[in-house]
């Protein structure tokens, strides 16, 4: 077949050394009655046929649709360097850096990644990445239970509903509780959130900008939570952090989010990466891998996996998390993205998202019957109220090649007329204008 390289001569030589008469003999430890009853797969093929099949599938993947949709995953520019550098074989064909002397590439990159995440979020300690945004929120919730030794988290219902589902599932098995607090319109209901905090509350979980696109200040919430011995967990959209106050600045204890928008392609759902960062005093409660700085036997600086005593391969069922794989390569892409744009470019990118969304907002709310539901500031997403059910409108515009937004009725009962619209820097003025025209047409007909 070509993928197993040994030739029949070599197989013969190897079997002679082993002292076996055939490869089949090596499977003798497996009793006959345990053998596979079926293995019904088609024969293999060559690269050429394979790529024909794969390209057909990719061609039917909706990549031609102009997306004004988000839900935590965003269509942002990816500088060419990101692909070029992350596809260095030495990065993507290595494993978890158990042997630090021959893994300084991965280790230093992850240390830099942790540094970038700390600077973005305004926190002091980051791990080396989690799976995705949703599981990151869930891991943060579990972390708050460990830190506070309490059993209940308050979950702002303006947090991404997909993430809330995951949090609920993670807590369910542990007999912990997630109490949801309904938003006030498109904003977090700060008063209700504060009122819900009690002595059993491990943490309050909010998202900024929230699922409706609203940006809020959670500083007071942080203070109130701390007064009751609870933590504040803020889930962020990292691109927004170029402009919006960081979780650290607001007094959050744990900052999480999905890193996809930092240099990772849409890829129909993954791989992305989740990030999690916290105050230094909580570092031993972080889940997953952590890279730390140290020195070698000659005093030279180097990097190692550290604080491994928290982890499953040592602590087993007492570990802070079951995580073994992280999303190292995706985190590397995130790091390269951050470094490629740099301090100034990162802020410019955020401002550009804001400007484009503001343009779209003014354009779309000028349509008859369309109003803005957000009452305060938004970043690059906002929620419109349409004069009719949003679902058929979106379906109609999909036929014209435009994903106009996410109808919110499926996530929030009673919000059938609401449409969440995302406008990243990649959406041109022409595309926004076309969206407005198509929407106008759909609403008139």
């Amino acid at each position, binding site marked *: 077949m070509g993928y197993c390289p040994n030739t029949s001569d070599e197989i013969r030589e190897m079997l002679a050394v082993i002292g076996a008469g055939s490869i089949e003999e090596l499977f003798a430890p497996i009793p006959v009655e345990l053998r596979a009853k079926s293995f019904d797969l088609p024969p293999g093929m060559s690269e050429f046929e394979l790529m024909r099949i794969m390209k057909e*599938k990719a061609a039917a993947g909706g990549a031609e649709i102009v997306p004004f949709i988000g839900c935590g995953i965003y269509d942002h520019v990816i500088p060419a360097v990101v692909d070029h550098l992350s596809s260095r074989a*030495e990065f993507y064909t290595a494993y978890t850096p158990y042997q630090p002397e*021959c893994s300084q590439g991965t280790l230093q990159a992850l240390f830099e990644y942790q540094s970038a995440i700390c600077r973005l979020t305004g926190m002091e300690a980051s791990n080396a990445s989690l799976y995705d945004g949703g599981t990151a929120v869930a891991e943060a919730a579990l972390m708050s239970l460990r830190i506070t030794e309490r059993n209940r988290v308050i979950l702002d219902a303006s947090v991404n509903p997909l993430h809330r589902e995951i949090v609920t599932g993670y807590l369910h098995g542990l007999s912990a509780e997630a109490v949801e607090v309904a938003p006030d319109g498109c904003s977090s209901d700060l008063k209700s959130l504060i009122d819900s905090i009690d002595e059993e509350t491990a943490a309050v979980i909010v998202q900024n900008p929230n699922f409706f696109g609203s940006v809020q200040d959670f500083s007071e919430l942080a203070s109130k939570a701390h007064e009751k011995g609870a933590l504040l967990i803020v889930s962020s959209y990292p691109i927004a952090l170029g402009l919006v106050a960081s979780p650290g600045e607001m007094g959050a204890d744990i900052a999480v989010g999905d890193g996809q928008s930092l240099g990772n392609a849409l890829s129909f759902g993954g791989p992305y990466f989740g990030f999690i960062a916290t105050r230094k005093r909580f570092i031993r409660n972080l889940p997953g891998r952590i890279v730390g700085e140290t020195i070698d036997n000659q005093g030279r600086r180097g990097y190692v996996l550290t604080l491994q005593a928290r982890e499953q391969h040592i602590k087993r069922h007492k570990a802070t998390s079951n995580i073994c794989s992280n999303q190292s390569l995706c985190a590397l892409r995130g790091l390269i993205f951050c470094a490629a744009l740099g301090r100034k470019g990162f802020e410019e990118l955020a401002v550009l998202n804001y400007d484009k969304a503001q343009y779209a907002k003014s354009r779309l709310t000028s349509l008859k019957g369309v109003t803005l539901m957000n009452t305060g500031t938004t970043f690059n997403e906002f929620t419109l109220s349409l004069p009719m059910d949003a679902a058929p409108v979106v379906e109609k515009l999909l036929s014209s090649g435009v994903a106009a937004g996410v109808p919110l009725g499926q996530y929030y009962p009673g919000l059938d007329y609401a449409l969440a619209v995302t406008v990243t820097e990649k959406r041109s003025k022409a595309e926004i204008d076309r969206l407005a025209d198509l929407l106008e047409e759909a609403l008139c007909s």
Partner: protein
Amino acid sequence: MQLIFEKSVPGRGGVRVPLSDVPKASTFPDALRRKQPVLLPEVSELDLVRHYTNLSRRNFSVDTNFYPLGSCTMKYNTKVTENAGGLFAGCHPVLPLLPGGERLVQGPLSLIHGLEQQLAEITGMDEVTTQPLAGAHGEMTGIMVISAYHKARGDHKRKYVIVPDSSHGTNPASAAMAGYEIVTIPTAPYGDMDLEQFKNAMNDEVAAVMMTCPNTLGLFNPHIAEICDIAHQAGALTYYDGANLNAILGKVRPGDVGFDVIHVNLHKTFGTPHGGGGPGSGPVGVKKGLIPYLPTPRVQRTEDGSFVAEAHPEGIGRVSDFFGNFAIMARAYAYITLLGREGLIEVSEHAVLNANYIMARLKDEYELPFEQTCMHECVFSASRQLKEGVHAIDIAKYLIDRGFHPPTVYFPLNVKEAIMIEPTETESKQTMDLFIDVMLEAARLARENPEALHQAPVTTPVGRLDETRAARAQQVCCE
């Protein structure tokens, strides 16, 4: 090497942001604006490229070095599957969640369905979900499914999960995250879970037993069918950790043997590279009775042949944001399609042949705690070398100097000074012979010149690193 942050020069430009074609918006409100600038590095594109290109060169990797890291299956993955994974970069995962959106993403949905079918046939399971994002995530998902199954039957008394002590650490950790208490069964002298102790531990408070087979010693447990029977008789379910599935492809199907749930590691068995620690993908397969409890959504084929992503109301809910690590799944689908039936059988045959060859060639010099035919990996002990003051770690570091990534050392925990070698099926006899020569040389040095081994590695950018200092300093980001 400096950190990228240390190469930063104030005012240096990086990659240019797109030009704006819309009017400048009124300023973002100060009250909500960040006060501290984001102190990202300010470097030129060249600085950036040179930094990460040179950083990459400080790694060993499969494409540059033999990497027989036991338990990790560091095989070579073809470049065409890598290309295949990249084809879907522009596909938005929210499209199928929109009304009428599913028809626009029939390609990726059919791929998910196809991969689930491939994996079901390979493992002997009835249905598979590709949502879990890693092996351990699959384990947790699998145990949550088991938990949901028991609860749906009104069976609320089961609070234990049985795990052999030789299992991956993720097994007990995952079961604990799903809310179970762990019962650990020791390994018997013959290298498998102690059957008597297992029988004694089994009762109607046990939710599941989790087995890794071949186990972490690389040995196939011939009693797995019996273990499944015992568990089933007590009303418990059986979980198969498929991390080592490459050893038995086409030879054994856990579903046939009696296992109810399995997870597989696409990044180990099915042709996706390891990415320096991830991303992986950990699909879970289940028997018919457990299908209702799989996570939502489920990709289904409708009567007209089109694919839909359906809510799965009885299931355990959502375990990841969308459909799993799709681009990793695409690589796995491509890999299985490329190799086909015969190619996959060849995988297990050559993985086992190669491991046994290395075992046979090294067993005169290295202690073999369980001398029997191994599967895809073999576990030695450096106990003989220890008598000369040479530890497994010394041998590992010497291998680095000779251009080989070390095997896994000090794991499994039940072997003293363990050296766990997994050559994988993609390595040739030629390469293994070079590795074996160096291993034999290390054994000779242990006798004749142990100091040479203690000093290793000397060819790397850094020597042995002070891990205690790192744990004490807790310096995990730059100032």
